[in-house]
């Protein structure tokens, strides 16, 4: 093609519309547009209208609750820190922890925690627990497995 581009462009080569539309597209357009407008303007259902009204109020209430909770948390923390500033009348938190936790108390805690479970749960409690938590089939399976061993 040797024709200068300027000539090609000056002919507005698109004067004949190269695009096509489905048959009858423009004939039905007004109806479709008006139907869509009617659909978008249709009143909302009762439930969604109530939800639309309540939603912002709930969001506001939740925000207040969050702010109140955060404020309360900050205040409590501030009070605790003020109380625990290391004076003789009010010993600091670190001092209190040091006093509470001694090597002896740690050993006691370990021993207490390490006691066998069987000693704390009697047989009747165990049976009741299994009866309430497991089905008859599950219990039968456990019994069968225990007997097989």
């Amino acid at each position, binding site marked *: 093609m040797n024709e200068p581009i300027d000539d090609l462009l000056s002919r507005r080569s698109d004067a004949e519309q*190269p695009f096509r539309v489905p048959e009858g597209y423009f004939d039905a357009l007004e109806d479709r547009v008006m139907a869509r407008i009617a659909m978008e303007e249709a009143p909302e259902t009762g439930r969604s209208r109530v939800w639309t009204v309540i939603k912002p109020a709930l969001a506001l209430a939740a925000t207040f609750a969050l702010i109140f909770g955060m404020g309360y948390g900050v205040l409590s923390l501030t009070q605790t820190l003020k109380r625990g500033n290391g004076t003789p009348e009010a010993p600091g938190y670190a001092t209190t922890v040091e006093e509470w936790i001694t090597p002896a108390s740690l050993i006691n805690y370990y021993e207490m925690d390490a006691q066998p479970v069987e000693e704390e749960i009697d047989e009747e409690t165990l049976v009741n627990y299994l009866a309430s938590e497991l089905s008859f089939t599950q219990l039968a399976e456990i019994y069968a497995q225990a007997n097989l061993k």
Partner: protein
Amino acid sequence: MTDREILKLYREGGRQEAFRLLVQNYKERLYWHIRRMVLDHDDADDCLQNTFVKAWTSLDRFRGDAQLYTWLYRIATNEALTFLSRQQTRGGRLELDAASRLSSDPWFDGDQLQATLHRVIAKLPPKQKAVFLLRYFEEMPYEQIAQVLETSEGALKASYHHAYEKVKAWMKEEMDVKY
């Protein structure tokens, strides 16, 4: 029915009837403008319907300081520009894909030259593309394009000139035409 008569009918209570007439008057012009912007028929149909829905919701506020014609073109152009930017954000350069698919598009039966022209136009930045299409295909006066795109006439003339030069250069590249 003229724009003035349509607006009169709308304000005197015949809203639906007036709007139906407005759609009837402008549907084809706006469709072809949008179609050249987005290329695909289904996308053009979506943008056109959105254009009319927006026109319906804001026609109450239309003060008449612009022509109804340029006001509708502004809504349609913005709708097409929004569509193109959304496409670019989602998949990147999708309008170029639409352009490259032109030859196999069942709703495009242009020749090779027309396909090439639309393919290179699709490479223009969206707003410059709008300027080029309104001026080149619709031969809209700069004064009206300025109202549609809310830009100064001077800026539009420069933008159109740049767009034209780019299209010419890209056409040359694609078709290997000798000056």
